[in-house]
């Protein structure tokens, strides 16, 4: 299980990351054309983390995510058409239009409930970990969350609980906070990992722009988690310059994969982020450099991905809005005689 990823795995991992990126770019396109999709928190720049973790998880592992969930869902196999339809509030969406961007949920892909409350995912993950253990499975729970979650007391309670009761939970903190900027968190600890460490949890830190590194480290850590101890992984990320926008904008432009082999062509205000921190371009470069994939193969993956997105958008746009009647459905799984 901790064996290194094969070349094939790595190409699949790249394809997964690209799918996540093209999906978010599609959201920006839709937002530009459509005012009804609300406030989106895109996963751009985080792809290496979500994709690599997804790559080394096993079927049956349960994951919990946050307001910034699109990438996690797509990474674990949620249908992009249904995901987009959900973000557009359509009946054909993953959640039948009830959830929207903040709550994408796909049971098949291992997501039972997606909370947009800061601290939501980490709390629920304790329940998943407990249930998976009590049901005698070999599966684990994963909590994805941002650095801001460490501000909430429930994160501390969750870490303490998992440590106390040896729950099989992998905590994945995607830290996109700039040193001292206090954009999404205000933690007095000098490092995020000081908190789980104080609670007796094994911690690890990884460069979140490096897909290989995330995959390798996560695979290693999962051995411990499957063995019955929680682990805390901090993925260190440079914040995507677009991530503070209320309405997503193409601040870094549509990703141009040729920048992987032609960095000199990168330009604009955010050239630095694109060159140094875009995990997709970085992984493409690595795959090219170590001969795992050719430019043509990469271009072909991209072409297929772009086709997938076109089909997804066509599906979503053709999906109707939910029937107003549906507004009162599924409040309960079981209705009683007393329900109107």
């Amino acid at each position, binding site marked *: 299980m901790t064996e290194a990823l094969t070349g094939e795995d790595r190409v699949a991992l790249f394809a997964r990351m690209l799918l996540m990126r093209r999906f978010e770019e599609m959201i920006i396109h839709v937002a530009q054309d459509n005012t009804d999709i609300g406030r989106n928190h895109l996963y751009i720049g985080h792809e290496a983390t979500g994709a690599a973790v997804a790559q080394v998880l096993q079927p049956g592992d*349960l994951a*919990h995510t946050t307001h910034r969930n699109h990438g996690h869902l797509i990474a674990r196999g949620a249908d992009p058409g249904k995901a987009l339809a959900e973000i557009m509030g359509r009946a054909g*969406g*993953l*959640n*039948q*239009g*009830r*959830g929207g961007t903040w*709550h994408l*949920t*796909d*049971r098949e892909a291992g997501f*039972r*409930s*997606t*909370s947009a*409350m800061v601290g*939501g995912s980490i*709390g*629920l*993950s*304790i*329940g*998943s970990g*407990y*249930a*998976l253990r*009590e*049901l005698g499975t070999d599966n684990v*729970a994963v909590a994805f969350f941002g650095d801001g979650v460490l501000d909430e*007391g*429930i994160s501390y*309670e*969750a870490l*303490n*609980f998992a440590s*106390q*009761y040896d729950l099989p939970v992998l905590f994945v903190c995607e830290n996109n906070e700039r040193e001292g900027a206090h954009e999404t968190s205000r933690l007095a600890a000098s490092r995020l990992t000081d908190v789980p460490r104080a609670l007796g949890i094994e911690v690890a830190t990884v460069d979140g722009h490096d897909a290989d590194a995330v995959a390798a480290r996560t695979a290693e850590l999962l051995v411990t988690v499957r063995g019955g101890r929680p682990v805390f992984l901090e993925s260190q990320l440079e914040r995507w310059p677009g991530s503070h926008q209320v309405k997503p904008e193409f601040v870094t432009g549509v990703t141009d994969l040729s920048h992987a082999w032609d960095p000199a062509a990168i330009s604009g205000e955010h050239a630095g982020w694109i060159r140094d921190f875009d995990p997709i371009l970085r992984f493409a470069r690595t795959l090219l450099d170590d001969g795992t994939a050719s430019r043509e193969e990469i271009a072909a993956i991209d072409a297929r991905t772009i086709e997938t997105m076109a089909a997804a958008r066509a599906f979503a746009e053709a999906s109707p809005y939910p029937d107003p009647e549906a507004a009162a*459905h*599924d*409040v*309960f*799984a*079981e209705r*009683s*005689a*007393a*329900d109107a």
Partner: protein
Amino acid sequence: MPRKSYAQAMLDAILAAFESDPTTRVIGPSFAQGRGAPETQEAFFKTYGARIMQPPISEGVTAALGAGAAMAGLRPFVNFGTSTFAFEAWNQIVNEAANAHFMSGGQVTVPVIYHMFAGIRGGGGVQHSQSPQSMYANCPGLKLVLPASPADIQGLIATAFRSPDPTVIINHTKLMGLEGDVPEGDVAIPFGQAEVKREGADVTLVATSLMVQRALDAADQLAGDGVKAEVVDPRTIVPLDRETIIASAAKTGRLVVVDEAAATCSIAAEIIASVAEAGVALTAPPVRVTRPDTPVGFSPALERAAEPNVEGIAGAIRRVMG
């Protein structure tokens, strides 16, 4: 029918669920507040210790654990002890557990039971005497159960353990010692079915939880004066059997509602409003008997002043009888 205490019936129901369903769990085992059935509790711990967990004093994550574990295939019975401790888990209960089924488009169910003790219990003081039932009733997605007798607690817990939905069970601490007849065998009581606990033609008393017992006492007292009071116990507030309540009010033409929570936006207000909306022509204006809109002070003198009692209920009945 065997006679047993409320505490015993509660434990028996949990025990029965544990016997028949291996996915049941108890999180927070001090569920009898030292108020009864110690032998059964001990036997329960002995047999099922591995399925019982004592969480840290971390109500937030404990409630989240219950919700998450329910989504993942367990049936947790999460016990908070005093109901105010669950205020630390408000977001996890009303915004996570309550919403997940709807929000996921029906993909997930959340069969968790949140159990708590509430009410003016004797020396609880300001922070341990609340009755949070109307706050929960205003949160769509939670079923809300207020068992008033040993038979009810046993039958309603049985149903809660089979329900796919998150269920809040609020027990009045003072009910734990109450004795009553409890049917043998499969005693599940469906949610949403009020029980007419006493029939009568002159006035309808709708009461919840401990107040059902007080209402029955007041009805007894008034029977001496020739007043025939009907006592209706909704048993579950969500779903609420408005039909039975409205039918009774229509029959008697007089309505008194008794609930221990603070008055404003209470279940008592809800029931009066429901009857009014149904266009029932009452002979006299309806009356609610609740705790006034005040915290409950510690002193026994202050508890007595805040607690709806038999005299207050009897007074309300006399008022509507004119």
